[in-house]
């Protein structure tokens, strides 16, 4: 008996509105001692529910229909809640996705970690907690234990979550997307920490993620889930070299996306977009009597230029000011200094009616397809909105023709025009958002992380669509993202942003291969690549 956890025929249903929906179907897998198993799947595949069933923290609406979960020879599903609490206290721990929300906001770190030590010798408790924090890489532990969660960064909070989880030296650690909300550089640190702790404590880890690259960094075995079923369960090295299942192959392919290269870029033509010395400062009144202001420099003097048909990417971690650039160009936020020229026209010099007329030349796709479509409007009305306001000269008949055309172009059915946004999935919604700007025939399209909230396979489809459109219509893209791996495959030129400034920019291949700036190097080194085993 080498395995510490064995899941047999687990079936789970969710009751909602008196309807029972089967979510997990016959899940079978096991985890061996000091093994890292990655549970991989897209959103809705049931991977989190599997984890929650193991630690028995399911919502009341979930109901386990059949199956057993055997942890060190005990069927977890059969034991009393009291006994289960002992197991949670001593043997199984869990880390959650959002460190921001997973810590109690009004308790300090000391008292939160202390709870993990309940029922154990309270001698030298403070010392133990300090040691624990040092072991998860927090070096000024004395200071940190008296702080509250909101005073710590995301990475720090996740370290504290890990510290709480390993306080009892568990046999099994369940990590539910622990790095998804973190920046890449922090992500790497957390992954390294988990591996190091695993060696030290000799524990098993069930690692849940949607990101194959991250999984490849850490796991010994890969389990792929789709629609509540396990479709592949193989050792890491086998999986990344020769996946058995066709869906796994697709996943693997999607995570190294390659676009069709646009060969028609004319580097000698005029720039479509020219941003010079753009500054966006947010000011905040320091005192309500004095006229003193505190400035937050969101964007601090950046230059960007884009040729027709080219894709320029801006890369940065959260808070680096990349979205602010997009908003500044679109006129959604006022700029403090600098010039934005589109098609050789300074947009700040246009008067408001001309500016509105000019807007059809540059448009934007937003990050979250769930909030970028008005839930109370039909798709047809959503797509038509820009057209009616920016090209009022088009008559109704032509509008309908354009709508039919564009909805076909983005790969949706004609009857979608009469539906409401909630009837579509995330990927389809992003297609609608693309259709909405395409009808205006823009020359420049700003894409603010258009794929970051989508599953990898869907991400691939949307990117394909964008690159097809670019080839057909010779549109320029300003692509904003935090995902270097993705960007390196789809962009021609690239700018790396850090704290409101561009630290390095140039041709994508040059920067990816020979980064000069220290920050860029650090960023590139942190990117997980599927090559550990290869």
């Amino acid at each position, binding site marked *: 008996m080498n395995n510490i956890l064995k899941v047999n025929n687990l079936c789970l249903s969710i009751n909602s509105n008196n309807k029972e929906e089967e979510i997990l179907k016959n899940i079978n897998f096991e985890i061996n001692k000091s093994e890292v198993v990655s549970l991989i799947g897209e959103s809705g595949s049931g991977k989190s529910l599997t984890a929650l069933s193991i630690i028995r*923290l399911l919502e009341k609406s979930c109901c386990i229909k059949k199956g057993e979960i055997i942890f060190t020879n005990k069927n977890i599903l059969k034991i009393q809640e009291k006994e289960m609490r002992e197991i*949670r206290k001593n043997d199984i*721990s869990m880390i*959650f996705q959002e460190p921001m929300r*997973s810590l109690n906001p*009004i308790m300090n770190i000391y008292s939160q970690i202390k709870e993990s030590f309940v029922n154990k010798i309270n001698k030298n408790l403070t010392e133990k907690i300090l040691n624990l924090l040092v072991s998860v890489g927090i070096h000024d532990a004395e200071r940190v234990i008296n702080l509250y969660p909101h005073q710590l960064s995301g990475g720090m909070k996740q370290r504290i*979550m890990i510290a709480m989880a390993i306080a009892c030296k568990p046999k099994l650690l369940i990590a539910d997307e622990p790095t998804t909300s973190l920046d890449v550089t922090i992500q790497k640190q957390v992954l390294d920490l988990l591996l190091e702790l695993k060696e030290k404590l000799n524990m098993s880890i069930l690692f849940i993620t949607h990101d194959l690259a991250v999984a490849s960094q850490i796991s010994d075995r890969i389990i792929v889930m789709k629609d509540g079923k396990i479709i592949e369960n193989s050792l890491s090295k086998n999986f990344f070299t020769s996946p058995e299942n066709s869906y796994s192959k697709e996943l693997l392919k999607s995570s190294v996306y390659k676009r069709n290269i646009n060969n028609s870029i004319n580097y000698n033509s005029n720039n479509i977009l020219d941003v010079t010395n753009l500054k966006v400062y947010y000011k905040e009144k320091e005192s*309500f009597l004095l006229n003193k202001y505190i400035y937050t420099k969101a964007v601090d003097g950046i230059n960007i230029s884009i040729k027709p048909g080219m894709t320029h990417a801006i890369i940065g971690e959260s808070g680096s000011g990349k979205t602010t650039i997009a908003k500044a160009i679109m006129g959604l936020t006022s700029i403090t200094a600098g010039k934005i020229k589109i098609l050789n026209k300074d947009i700040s010099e246009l008067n408001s009616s001309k500016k509105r007329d000019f807007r059809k030349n540059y448009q934007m796709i937003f990050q979250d397809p769930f909030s970028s479509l008005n839930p109370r409007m039909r798709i047809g009305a959503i797509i038509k909105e820009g057209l009616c306001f920016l090209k009022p000269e088009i008559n109704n008949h032509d509008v309908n023709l354009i709508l039919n055309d564009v909805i076909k172009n983005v790969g949706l059915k004609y009857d979608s025009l009469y539906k409401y946004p909630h009837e579509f999935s995330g990927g389809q919604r992003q297609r609608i958002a693309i259709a909405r700007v395409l009808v205006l025939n823009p020359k420049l399209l700003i894409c603010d992380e258009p794929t970051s909230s989508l599953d990898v396979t869907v991400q691939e489809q949307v990117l394909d669509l964008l690159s097809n459109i670019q080839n057909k219509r010779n549109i320029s893209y300003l692509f904003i993202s935090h995902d270097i791996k993705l960007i390196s495959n789809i962009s021609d030129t690239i700018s790396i942003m850090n704290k409101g400034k561009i630290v390095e920019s140039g041709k994508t291949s040059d920067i990816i291969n020979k980064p000069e700036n220290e920050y860029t190097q650090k960023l590139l080194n942190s990117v997980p690549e599927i090559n550990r085993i290869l």
Partner: protein
Amino acid sequence: MIKYIIKRILYAIPILIGVNILTFTLFFVVNSPDEIARLHLGNKRVTQEQIISWNEERGYNNPLFYNNSEIGLKVFKKTIFYEKSFKLFLFDFGLSDSGRDIKYDIKQRMWPSLAIALPSLFVGLFINITFALFFVFFRFTYVDYFGVILCVALMSVSSLFYIIGGQYLISKLLHLVPISGYTQGLDAIKFLILPTIISVIYSIGSGTRWYRSLFLEEIEKDYVKTARSKGLSEVTVLFHHVFRNALIPILTGVVVILPLLFLGSLIVESFFGIPGLGSYTIDAIQSQDFAIVRAMVFLGSILYIFGLILTDISYTLVDPRVSLK
């Protein structure tokens, strides 16, 4: 901290000015003092002399804003606006229309008001939170379901009915406590018990439901899941995590009404004959004594603003995320 409080007090001034102007417009511009005098003297066959003398006795004979017949600063001082509205800022409430000193009355009457309002608030808070925690512990079971329905039913009963029913049942049928009245000192307790009980029962419906929803909102948060994953028992999770976090909105909700407790409860006090500010206001409304109503409006808004400032301060004390800026 002190800087912040000063700032908040400065912010309060324009609001008080607004309240002042509003009441002034309501009481003196919409109806001229003559009309009010006529109402008080009885509508029919009132001579002009009677009106003038009535107004003179109460100082309503001055012009509204600007007195032509005076010189110097008195041009502004000898006006209704200065005498009746501006002086409120100096806490000079003047005399009531029936000739009593309002400030003295308020000082006398706020303690009985407080004697009912304070115990009602805290006993009510205790009972409501206990019930809410009980329902949350049994959440989504039949206990919870019928508890909520009971709360809705309790909420749907008029407060007047609670009072009349309570008086009838406890005082008249069971003869446990006197129906109404008040004395000084410790003897007052027997007069205070019934109004307190009735106020508490009246608050149970809405209070329990509101606190229950606060607890439920908290219990769905991620950190509660973290706490459970540490192996803490359900009771520990409820008291250490859920309760403490939900206490923040509860506490601040209580703090904001603390100053207003001085004003007492209009209905309860008048039904039970408690000589508090609530029955004072009701008597003033019923006898159309506008001087008292004006004073109470101003006092009420001062206390409300004071409550808001207290709320902000209490936030910083209980919530580490908030700091005064």
